[in-house]
């Protein structure tokens, strides 16, 4: 193996993926996608992979998958085989994917231009998000967002060692009482804080379902005060919250 020292290189522009690299090679060779000479492209593609030039290391497996497809297509073309008209050949499939991907790239470019034009126009929101700590308009969160935080907490809990086995059984009815009385004492419950204080995964599960149930019945409302902020649970009558 030869080792070349080429000085310090900073590679910032990776190919987004194998399709991006393939399109680059096709353009470089001034081919049209439908008239692609796959053997030539395959050789060049593999050369890129070998040098890891422009290959995002975290996506290497995706690049390898496509390399396998290319080699498979090449080997198929060497074997005499009656063409089955009903079956879509991997070659046609790849070409189709490339044509579609080229469109995606163009749409992305268009969106990027639109983004650029829009970024020149400032809205009220931008200042709010970046600078002031004024009270944010409360945004109601969806069950999916609630679930995401819930799984984070479960993960954290799983890493903790429990020293005792809880023999207590939790029921949704009891939890409901507990949560509602807690809300009478406090104005709101911080979802993450409340969940992480609970003893066992079982209790977390029961509490989570209780909350979902109460939200579904419109007794409680879950709101997020800012993007990525904590989620708070309020009794629903607190206000007609903006949505």
């Amino acid at each position, binding site marked *: 193996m030869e080792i070349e020292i080429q000085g310090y290189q900073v590679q910032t522009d990776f190919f987004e993926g194998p399709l991006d690299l393939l399109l680059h090679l096709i353009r470089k060779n001034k081919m049209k996608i439908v008239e692609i000479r796959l053997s030539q492209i395959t050789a060049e593609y593999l050369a890129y992979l070998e040098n890891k030039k422009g290959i995002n290391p975290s*996506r290497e497996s995706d690049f390898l998958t496509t390399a396998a497809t290319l080699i498979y297509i090449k080997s198929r073309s060497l074997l005499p085989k009656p063409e089955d008209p009903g079956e879509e050949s991997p070659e046609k499939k790849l070409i189709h994917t490339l044509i*579609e991907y080229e469109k995606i790239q163009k*749409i*992305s470019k268009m969106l990027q231009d639109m*983004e650029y*034009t829009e970024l020149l126009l400032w*809205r009220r929101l931008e200042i709010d998000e970046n600078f002031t700590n004024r009270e944010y308009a409360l945004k109601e969160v969806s069950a999916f967002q609630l679930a995401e935080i819930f799984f984070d907490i479960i993960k954290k809990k799983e890493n903790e060692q429990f020293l005792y086995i809880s023999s207590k059984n939790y029921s949704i009815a009891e939890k409901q009482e507990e949560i509602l009385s807690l809300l009478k004492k406090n104005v709101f419950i911080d979802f993450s804080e409340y969940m992480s204080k609970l003893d066992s995964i079982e209790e977390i599960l029961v509490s989570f379902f209780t909350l979902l149930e109460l939200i579904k019945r419109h007794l409680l409302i879950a709101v997020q005060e800012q993007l990525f902020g904590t989620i708070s649970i309020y009794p629903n009558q607190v206000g007609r919250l903006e949505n």
Partner: protein
Amino acid sequence: MNPEPIIYQIAMIEAILFVSKEPVEPGRIMEFLEIKDIGEFEKLLAIMEKEHLQDRPERGLLLKRSGGGLQLVTKPELHDELKAFFTIKQSTKLSLASLETLSIIAYRQPTTLAEISDMRGVNSTGPVKSLLQKKLIKITGRKKVPGLPLLYATTQEFLIYFGLNDMTELPSLEELTELFEEKEQPSLFK
């Protein structure tokens, strides 16, 4: 109240938009101002848009229709100065991966992660997650195929972010092909 209704109405529209953080639905303003005819309302908007804002270099704002609503935004030529005043170094832009993922979702919605990854040729969990956090896409349900994968679609924030009033403002796939073909011709002479 002002004896001249049009002046009062335009002043009210401007005041409402000034206070609002998000685009305001035209219907709500019309109802409040008791304007029945959309043509009449549009006329007011046109006066405000052109004579009061766009054609007046001493004004720093524009009227913008985005996400189906009306909004006041700053004039594009003031961007750099605003950045300096508020000491913002770089406006955050979407990554190429996010843009590609959004392109697929915008044109094939509702769509699944598997479809997105398939079309991009790379696993797209990362960009989908970041777009969800940015609220540019949302989960609309599950596809009724084995595994019940989640379905994703674009949001109103998507429209606002890209300055679109509604989804029909995006060129159709056929129009896109024509558009790109026209654009590409000059490159033949490179």
